[in-house]
């Protein structure tokens, strides 16, 4: 860069055309960097579905409920332990699968609805979220549902449904024509919802089995990668849910779980399904064939439940991409989208004033 022997620190005058050109170039460079930043941040693309706009859609459809999750809003905390039987160690080097490993688990049961005081009822999808606390400070979080497939292959499909089911201001209900048009344009979702609706729902939380639905990758100690899906399979015997709500109690499903756990710990087997190369890992609307190899890798024992409160499951973001070494996300686009939207929901609710959950069961009355 040639150096001026006696530099002037004034802006160039209007007569100094070459210097003015340089000034414009400098302004242009700075403006381009600023514009690139704004574009990257989505501010120049109002039509882009960002995590914030996704959460806005939940709030538009279901109302704003400060302090609560924007989806799966009504829930209760559960705690216990996961004991590995060692069978998972050949698939994944995660320490949680070592033979004899036992780790504390902080979990949550919820209804999949976005309204925190919704009434329990038939055909409400239930979820189990878990945070495995590994001994060296690693963590494994998973959110699972008691349905065989997920209704959406992509976040866009989910978002489109939220838009299509936006309440009509005139009726307070979604416009049936819009909803019909949505399903016409989203055959995968229509098919998945049919699969979900035709599978038998269990009568409670304790006898429900919960499926991870998204595919993950298990990394073995020798580097072998295995595509997997996992499930928490109930030990309590399956009983089908009645067509009508068995009680007028708004929280009968949660109350029943409180009574069940008061009688003793509730258990699930963590069953890992091993995918074959032809099994889709990036489409959660498609179940893998029933004959795929399944490995029981350990037992989850839940021995305590309590209402959501400061510092318990309420304050955990069950982000499916918080994973220990030995487990990785697959190419399923829902994983990144869930992670992003959960973070946005958490960001909003964590700073809001909290009100007590509609579910206030706890097992403190349980005999020691």
């Amino acid at each position, binding site marked *: 860069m040639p150096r001026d022997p006696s*530099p002037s*620190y004034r802006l160039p005058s209007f007569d100094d055309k070459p210097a003015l050109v340089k000034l414009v170039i400098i302004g242009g460079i700075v403006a381009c960097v600023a514009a690139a930043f704004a574009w990257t941040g989505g501010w120049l693309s109002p039509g882009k579905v960002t995590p914030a706009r996704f959460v806005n859609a939940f709030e538009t459809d279901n109302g704003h409920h400060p302090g609560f999750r924007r989806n799966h809003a009504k829930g209760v905390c559960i705690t216990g332990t996961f004991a590995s039987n060692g069978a998972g160690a050949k698939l994944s080097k995660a320490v949680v699968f070592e033979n004899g490993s036992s780790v504390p688990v902080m979990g949550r049961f919820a209804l999949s609805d976005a309204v925190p005081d919704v009434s329990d009822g038939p055909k409400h999808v239930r979820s189990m979220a878990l945070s495995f606390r590994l001994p060296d400070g690693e963590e494994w979080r998973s959110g699972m549902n008691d349905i065989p497939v997920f209704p959406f292959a992509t976040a866009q499909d989910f978002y489109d449904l939220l838009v299509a089911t936006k309440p009509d201001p005139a009726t307070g209900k979604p416009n049936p024509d819009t909803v019909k048009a949505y399903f016409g344009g989203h055959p995968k979702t229509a098919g998945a919802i049919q699969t979900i609706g035709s599978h038998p729902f269990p009568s409670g939380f304790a006898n429900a089995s919960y499926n991870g639905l998204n595919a993950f990758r298990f990394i073995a100690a020798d580097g072998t990668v295995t595509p997997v899906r996992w499930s928490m399979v109930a030990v309590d015997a399956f009983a089908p849910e009645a067509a009508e709500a068995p009680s007028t109690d708004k929280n009968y499903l949660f109350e029943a779980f409180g009574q069940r756990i008061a009688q003793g710990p509730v258990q699930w087997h963590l069953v890992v399904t091993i995918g074959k190369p032809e099994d889709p890992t990036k489409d959660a609307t498609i179940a893998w064939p029933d004959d795929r190899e399944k490995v029981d890798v350990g037992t989850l024992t839940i021995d305590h439940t309590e209402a959501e409160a400061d510092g318990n499951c309420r304050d955990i973001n069950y982000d499916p991409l918080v994973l220990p070494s030995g487990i990785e996300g697959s190419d399923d686009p829902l994983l990144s989208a869930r992670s992003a939207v959960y973070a946005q929901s958490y960001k909003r609710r964590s700073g809001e004033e909290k009100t007590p959950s509609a579910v206030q069961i706890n097992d403190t009355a349980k005999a020691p």
Partner: protein
Amino acid sequence: MNQPFTIFSRLLHWLMAILILAMLFIGVGMVASLTDYGWLVQIHKPIGALILVLVVVRLINRLLHPAPPLPTGMPGWQRFAAHASHVVLYVLMFALPLVGWGMLSAVHTPVVLYGSLHLPPILPADAMLYAKLRTAHTVLALLLFLTFLAHLGAALMHALIFRDGVFDSMTSGRNQS
């Protein structure tokens, strides 16, 4: 402007310039993306930790090898702006990774660097504390980006308009007169 920055100082400056600019774009991009959030968050954490290590090295280096004096002809307000913006840059280079580390600690999320290697928490789990730190992380990042834009504009002014050797002291270093 009689001597340039040392080679090590220049190396640190340009390495961190690339990392910090990349991190600002990664950060603002990931929170606006459903599809790329996962992998961007994954690289955001180790790069943030690397920047924190580098800024410690850089501060020590700066104390051992102070910046060359500004040209004597520079007006007072420009000297003040230069010094103040550098103080802001240093404070933010420390604050952003620390706030990021702190906010993840406040939600009990391990800051995974690679494989099972992760940073220990530096704060207790506390959702309300998280909310405050999360907001601070955004505000400070935007402030860092604005300070960077001012820094970039000022550097180009020195290079193209003032031509006083300040820009060269951080680039070629061949400006000893």
